Every structure is written in C-alpha cells, then in structure tokens.
C-alpha cells in the first residue's frame, strides 16, 4: 500500500468520525444528555488521531517539509481546531462548546474532501521553510483566537440570560461564565504569541524575497488590524484587569476583523495570499 493511499484512508476515516462526532454533539444538545457529548469528544479525539496520521504521511511524502496541497491546508485548519478544542477539554469541562466547534471542523473536512489533492498550495516562488512556519503558526494561533471569541460570544449569551433572570434550558446548557471567561483568557494568552511568531516568520520571508510593497497588501493590513486588536485585548486583560462581559464583547469585535481579513479581503481584493 502506498503512502498516498494510506493518507487517503486516514483522511476519510477522520471525515467519517468528524461527521459522527458532530451528529453526537448536536444530538446531545437536543436530548440534553452529557454522556452523548462525552462519547462525541472521544470520537473527535479519534478523528484528530487520524488527521495527525495523515499529516505524518504528508511530511514523509514531502521529505519532512511542510509542503501542503489545498486539501491539506483545509484539513490542517480542521486539525488545529481539533487540537485546540481537545486541549481545552482538559482544562475546562465545557463540552457544549463542541456543539459549536465540531460543525466548523466538519465543514473544513468536507471542503478539504472536495479539493483537488496533489497540487501544491504555494506557488513555486513562495515555497520555503519560513512560509511553512508562517502558515503553521498563524493558522494555529488564529484558531485559538476564534476559540477565544466563540467563548466570548457564548459569555454574552449566558450573561444576557442571567441578567434577565431567564434561567431556562439554554442557560443550563451553556457553560458557566467563569469557564467561558477562562477559555477566552487561554485563547488570547496562547494565541497571541503564536500568531506573533507566525507573523515574524512571514515578515522575514517578505523582507528577504520582496523587499518592498508587501506592507500595503490588503490581506496583511487587515490581519495586522485583527492581530493588534487581539493584542490590545490581551494587554487590557493582563495589565488593566479587564474581565467578563467587556472582554467577551470586544472578542466578538476582534472576530469580525479576523473574519474580514479572510473572507472580505478574498472577495474584494487581489492579494499576495490569493492561494489561501
């Protein structure tokens, strides 16, 4: 059996497990059974293991270099999502977050399945170790940012329910305010240095290859704005002591900027990151 067929099997196993996990999480919301969410977490962990195996084959295939095709890129986003969510599960027991995250992971996996395999993601002139490090770190860090913002949005929902004293089914289902605030804190604390390191790798590459002109690229400008916003939030949290509601709302705003740096820029401008 060749590496590519083993890679195909690992990816499709992860896809099927991801679908089961999403169904499990959503059903656990419907029937309000924690046990079902627990099982879904284990299924997602299995999907994560298969994706890891897939990337091991990718590394071997590309002689231990982080050379991804379009399918690998989307699958990598799903892998990073799984990794961040599962590690958060060790810190806080907020399985309901899985019902929000697992559909996103599944969407990435489905999109990855639809992409053509084998065609390199980067144009020839962008293939270097620095771009590989840049991509790996920024994706991973931005997943942490998304997680921080999603926890923030759930905080806003739970806050509204508790303030209006509607202590009903939804409120019972959502995690506690403190747990959500903690996820937000961890997402920022880990996400910011990782994204920063990724940006530094990208900047060094740009400075070496292009010298000038790259700083006004719309994708870079928007991502920089999102990075600054998350950095500002981390500063406010650590230095000023912002907590709870204000952090949650501002994280939502930062998520909008981050989404625009991907979708808005891709739709409206031609950028140096067109391949993503």
């Amino acid at each position, binding site marked *: 059996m060749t590496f590519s067929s083993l890679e195909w099997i690992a990816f499709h196993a992860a896809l099927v497990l991801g679908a089961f996990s999403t169904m499990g999480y959503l059903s656990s919301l419907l029937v*309000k059974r924690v046990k079902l969410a627990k099982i879904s977490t284990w299924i997602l962990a299995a999907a994560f293991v298969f994706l890891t195996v897939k990337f091991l084959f990718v590394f071997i295939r590309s002689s231990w270099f982080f050379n991804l095709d379009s399918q690998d890129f989307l699958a990598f986003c799903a892998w990073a999502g799984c990794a961040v969510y599962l590690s958060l599960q060790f810190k806080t027991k907020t399985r309901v977050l899985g019902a929000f995250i697992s559909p996103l992971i599944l969407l990435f996996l489905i999109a990855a399945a639809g992409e053509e395999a084998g065609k390199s993601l980067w144009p020839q002139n962008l293939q270097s170790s620095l771009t590989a490090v840049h991509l790996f770190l920024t994706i991973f860090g931005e997943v942490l940012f998304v997680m921080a913002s999603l926890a923030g949005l759930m905080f806003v929902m*739970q806050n509204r329910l508790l303030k209006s*004293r509607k*202590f009903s089914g939804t409120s019972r289902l959502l995690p*506690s*305010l403190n747990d959500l605030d903690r996820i937000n804190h961890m997402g920022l604390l880990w996400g910011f240095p990782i994204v920063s390191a990724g940006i530094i790798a990208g900047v060094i590459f740009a400075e070496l290859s292009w010298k000038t002109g790259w700083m006004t690229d719309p994708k870079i400008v928007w991502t920089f704005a999102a990075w600054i916003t998350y950095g500002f939030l981390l500063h406010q949290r650590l230095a000023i*002591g912002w*907590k709870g*509601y204000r952090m949650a709302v501002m994280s939502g705003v930062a998520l909008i900027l981050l989404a625009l740096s991907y979708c808005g820029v891709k739709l409206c401008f031609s950028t140096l990151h067109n391949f993503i």
Partner: protein
Amino acid sequence: MKMIVLVGVNHKTAPVAVREKIFSGCGQKSDLLSALKAIEGVEEVLYLSTCNRVEIVASVSDDVRALRALKAFLAQSGDLTATEAQSCLYEYRGGEAVRHLFRVAASLDSMVMGEAQILGQVKDAYREALEKYATGVVLNRLMHCSFRAAKRVRSETGIATNPVSVSHAAVELAKKIFGSLDGKKILLIGAGEMAELTGMQLIEKGAQSMIIVNRSLAQAELLAEKFHGEAAALDALEKKLIEADIVISSTGAPDFIVTADMLKKIHHQRKNRLLFLIDIAVPRDIAPAASELENVYLYNIDNLQDIVDENINARRREAVKAEKIVDEEVEKFIGWQKELDSVPTIVSLRNKAGDIVREELEKASGWMRNLKKEDQERIEGLIHAIVNKVLHAPVTVLKEESSDISSRDIVAAVRRLFRLD
C-alpha cells in the same frame, strides 16, 4: 397464590400528629418485623418509615385477612381511633401495591417530587428486613425491581435535575456564574435563617470561607464561630464587599444597604471579578440598579422563587415520563410473579419425568449390565434427551402463558393430564 399488599399513612392522608403517633408506636416495638411476620397469612414483610410516611409491604397468602390484620396493627401501634384509622390509613393490593411502592421509591409520591433521599430510605428498610430474614423470593424481587424503576426514573427523566428550594436554586445559579465554587468567598449580610442555610449549602459545595457582617457584632461573631468564618460590623461592609464573590443579604433594614454607587466605587479594587448578589430580604437590601453594573448578577427572593416555580412545573412535566417507566416496570414484575405461579407445576412435571426415567432404568438394569459402560451411558443420555424434548413444549407454554389470564386453566390442565396432584 401469593399476593403483595401494602398498608400505610403518608403526608397526603394523615396530619403530622397522626404520623408521629404511628411512627413512635411502631418504633417502640422491640422486634417489629417478627411481630408483623407473626400475623396470620403474612409470609414476607418489610417496614418503611420516613418523616412523611409509615408503610408496611407484605407478601400474603390471604389478602383480605392479612390487610385487615395489618391495618389493625398500625392503628393499634399509633393508638388511633376507628375514625382516624378509617380516614388516614390506605391499602393497596396486587398490581396497585407494586405500583405504589415503585412510585414511592422513584420519589413520585414524595412531598418534594424528585427528592433523592427516599430511595436511600427504601434501601435501608430493605436492608433491615433482609438482616431479620423477613423477606423472601417475592419481596426480594419486588424491592430490586423498585430500585431499578427508581434508577431508570432518575437517569431517563429530568425529574431530579432542577432544584426546587430557594437555597438550592441560589447554589445552582452560583455554579452557573462561577463554575466551580472552590475558593469563593461568601459575604453574609444579616443573620437570617434562610441566608444561613444558603451560605451553608454554598460552603458544602466548595466555597472557601464566610464573612458575616451584622448590625450586632456579637451575633455576627456567634455565627462566624459556627461557620469558622470572620465577623465584622456593618461599618466595614464596603471593605468586605471588595473581598466577596457571593453576597447573601437578609437584614431587616428599611432602606438599601448595598447601593449601585457603592459597588461602582469598589469596581476597580475588585479587579472586575464576577459578583453574585442574593437579596432575600423584604424590604430589599440591595438596590435594583446594581444589576445594571457589568459583571454583577443580582437576584432577589421573587426571582429565586420564580426559578423554583418553573422547576416545579418542569418536574411535573417530567413526572408524566416517569409514570410510564413505572408502568413498564410494574408490568415486568407482574409478569414475573405470574410466571412464579407456574413454577411449582413445572417443577412437579420435571420431577415426575425424572422419577419415571429412574424407575425404568432400574427395571432395565438387568439386561443393561451386559452392555459396555459407554453404551449404558449413551442409552441413558438418549432417554434424558427424549424426555427433555417431550417436556420442552408444555414447559414453554406454561412459562409463556403464565402472564395470560387463562394461565390457571392451562396449569390445571397440565396437572390433570400428567396426574401431578
């Protein structure tokens, strides 16, 4: 045929004075279970007593006489008048007795529906009966089925999920705000009974310490000693609010003690930490404007009572599902009990067949002696196999039809056909 009967009193049929009399009357009897078992017709017995009920469950051979005797026993123990006994004591027999016991174990018949203690009390009653050898095949099975029904009700319905007391509702809210209560500081303003109870439950759930602020410092110190907490005078309230995570207020003060301005002033010193304010005082102690502040969650007694009311309604809705589970379990038990009726006939039938085989083998022992030992064993094996096959159909029919109304006719027919009597 053995029948299950149940007699007793509970909070719905008898006032506390009557329940008390029966409870202490029965409690005074040195060997209550032996006394109950000595009643004519009673074969197995179990005595259950909680603060809300006293009940006797028994497996009896003559239900009419046994019920009369058991009711007389309870009336006599409680020194009840004939009218009292008539109005307070209830009786169930057969399937209704089984259903009542299952409902009791599943906490569907409790004063606070869904409370968890009753199952433990039923288990204790069963343990005592077991130790005194008061139960047998029927009651052992009945009790295990009641535990299963209760367990299913708890796990398959939401009857016990939502709290139905103000203090428990406050604890649940605190958990929704803070997640874990470990290390949280409680500030008690005033020394009301309800505030004390809520504080105690928060401490039980992991809250770290309690600060008691009261107009009378002496009373605050008294309470602080009880909770191993810290006492402070009302003047120190603002300072203590900085440390607190959960505030429970229940003073008799006519005006607001905690105002929104006060909380705004200490906002930075509290480092924006979440603050849960529980105001169970009437008139209120905490200004309603406090709830508009960021990271502050204020609930007054009416808000908590609304949650409790909603939870009670939710439990009632869940009770419909629970009753269906009880019905299923009652049906299973009744099926088993009917099957039990056909067991003596099946045993007699098998014994008779065994006797015939043994007799015929003895008769044939003369000529079989000439055969090899292996051949003798083969012939014996063959005979047993034929007998088992012949008996298989009638035994299966007896087991299957035992849950049917016509089972008695079939049992009678088998006994006559095979001359078992």
